[in-house]
């Protein structure tokens, strides 16, 4: 039998931190940026803002032009062999000691967790995988724990809702890092939204294969974001942004999700110390 919903859903339904605490290196002089395929084509400005945020910290950013996709779309669709070939190409490009910063949590999670499964039968490759996994950081995590940024908010007071990709949150703790960075912004009030830890319905190929279910999920997600009273929506995962923004647009809503990198840069004047 059905029961009435409780009063404070987010008190019990916000995801806990999953990943065990990680050792962070000192701020390096050089980093790689892995731009990710969705960001490359649909949110390139967010990628540039990520580069500017890193440069502002005095870091040289390297963007290997031969990079493409982490392999996740094929991997989650069950085309493991195809995913492995694409993954191998990225492995070769991001060799060395520099940290790899990824402005998208689920792609970072692919590097950090799923390449082990992809190359489990190749002991030699696994050494490269281990190195890549140890050097991979999601952008917010890197800014917070490696750069140890202290952000100075120069924007007007605003209420902001943060959406974190579910796999990214579970694999990379992106919700913890995103909240901490937003928390540094004096005039930004982060508001919870209903069922915050619930998936927006993207799931890559899922949104195409199961359009009805995915559509119902993203409609609920956009309604919750609207209902939160937030004036702005921020997320650090481009797949979710594509999904959520597409749904906002279809509904004729003015609200759009913005990539966390762009939001942070905009709020902090774009230059160090401002």
């Amino acid at each position, binding site marked *: 039998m059905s029961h009435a919903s409780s009063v404070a859903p987010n008190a019990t339904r916000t995801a806990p931190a999953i990943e065990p605490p990680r050792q962070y290196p000192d701020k390096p002089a050089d980093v790689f940026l892995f*731009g990710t395929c969705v960001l490359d084509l649909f949110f390139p400005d967010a990628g540039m803002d990520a580069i500017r945020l890193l440069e502002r910290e005095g870091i040289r950013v390297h963007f290997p032009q031969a990079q493409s996709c982490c392999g996740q779309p094929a991997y989650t669709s069950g085309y493991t062999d195809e995913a492995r070939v694409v993954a191998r190409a990225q492995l070769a490009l991001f060799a060395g000691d520099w940290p790899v910063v990824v402005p998208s949590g689920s792609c970072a999670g692919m590097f950090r967790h799923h390449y082990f499964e992809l190359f489990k039968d190749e002991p030699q490759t696994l050494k490269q995988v281990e190195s890549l996994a140890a050097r991979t950081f999601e952008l917010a995590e890197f800014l917070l724990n490696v750069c140890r940024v202290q952000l100075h908010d120069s924007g007007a007071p605003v209420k902001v809702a943060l959406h974190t990709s579910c796999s990214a949150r579970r694999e990379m703790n992106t919700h913890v890092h995103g909240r901490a960075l937003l928390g540094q912004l004096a005039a930004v009030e982060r508001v919870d939204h209903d069922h915050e830890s619930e998936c927006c319905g993207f799931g890559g190929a899922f949104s195409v294969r199961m359009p009805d279910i995915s559509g119902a999920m993203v409609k609920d997600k956009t309604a919750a974001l609207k209902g939160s009273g937030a004036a702005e929506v921020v997320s650090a995962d481009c797949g979710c942004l594509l999904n959520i923004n597409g749904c906002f647009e279809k509904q004729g809503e003015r609200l759009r999700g913005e990539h966390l990198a762009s939001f942070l840069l905009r709020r902090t004047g774009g230059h160090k110390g401002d």
Partner: protein
Amino acid sequence: MNAMTDVPAVPIAFKRNAREALADPQLRRNFRGAMDFLMDKRRVQFPDGDELERLRAFGNRVRARALSKLPELLERLDANLSRNGVKVHWAETVEEANAIVHRIVEQHAAKKVIKGKSMVSEEMEMNHYLGERGVDCLESDMGEFIVQLREEKPSHIIMPAIHLNVGQVASLFHDKLEVDYTEDVDRLIQIGRETLRRNFFEADIGVSGVNFAVAETGTLLLVENEGNGRMSTTVPPVHIAVTGIEKVVENLRDVIPLLSLLTRSATGQAITTYVNMISGPRKADELDGPQEVHLVLLDNGRSQAFADGELRQTLNCIRCGACMNHCPVYTRIGGHAYGTVYPGPIGKIVTPHMLGLDTTRDLPTASSMCGACGEVCPVKIPIPALLRRLREEAVRAPEAVPHHMRGQGSKYSKKEAMLWKAWRKLNTSPALYRAFSFAGTRLSALMPSNIGPWTEHRSAPKPAARSLHELAREHLGED
């Protein structure tokens, strides 16, 4: 394992079912409310995240150890139950299991069976099988009783009637039991109990499921809240327990953490109202209990999962239903849309072994891989990883199929395989990738605004004017 048949498998009409469920606002409200309630109840039971993680790891180890010696434990279970006077039967298929039950029914010339809650009996469609043979089966769990009255199947493995609200049950009782219409929950339960009560005494046979079968002591453990489980297993002269072969644990010590994980994860209870431990029929000096106890151990595809190191983890399941309660897909479409006995995330990974990947072809893909199920699973089944593995098996090219899974390769399509090959080429050839993104960004105005199902709920994504590759090249130089 199930017998292979020449009849081509008819895939479950999952997408159509889901579409219908999504269009039913009453169903959507009922599930959302009920799942929120259950999620909150569970969270209250596990206030300490670190302790929960330790307990889950412990539960996982206990299950993994049991499965690592499954054949040996099953033999010990058989020997110790037999020593206790329980008759043990082995069934590879549901047909065999039903035949065994029917044989016992015939031996006792039984006409009436009362059932405690058992998902394995649902797997067997026992009510239907015995009904066709003139035997009356009555469900005594309140939720099961309600769905039986409605001639439906359970929509949840723990709460079979969770898809209904009070008003719907009130109407049902008013229509079928000819009582005054009331939405008073206590009164409705009372009506149900009064109806069921006499049936316990009239039944020739009681049927139940099993939560844990303890090998060392030959004990069948059964948890429940209504007392109907105890009545079904003690009042009728014959008790038949049915269970899957994976339910065996090594000893009573192993039960303690699993029981604690089960009740807290399932209904948010520290312990259930009843914990029944059945170790044999009535002894000479005992006043009650059945004169005969049987256990039917059912395989039904479980050994196919068991044979693979990764897929074996499917059998860790203790059937708490937490993965359903936390699943954003299940919450929106409910249990019936899956068209399977076990719905939700666990249903997606266990049913392909029972019915074949051909029949269940849409189930593994009906997940956004959000990971909520894996996060709450009390025995740490990596459900998303197993879904991915089943997707891999379903699309394996015919020439690469080693035929160790029923229905393997049934979702293979040459067209899709070619698309992924093209995707691979694109993402491993920088020149091709550059040309593609150049075309994609420059010609974005030509992109269709309607790209099939995606645009039913969203606007079409529009590529930016220039890719990050280009912008970064300009800003950072060629790297």
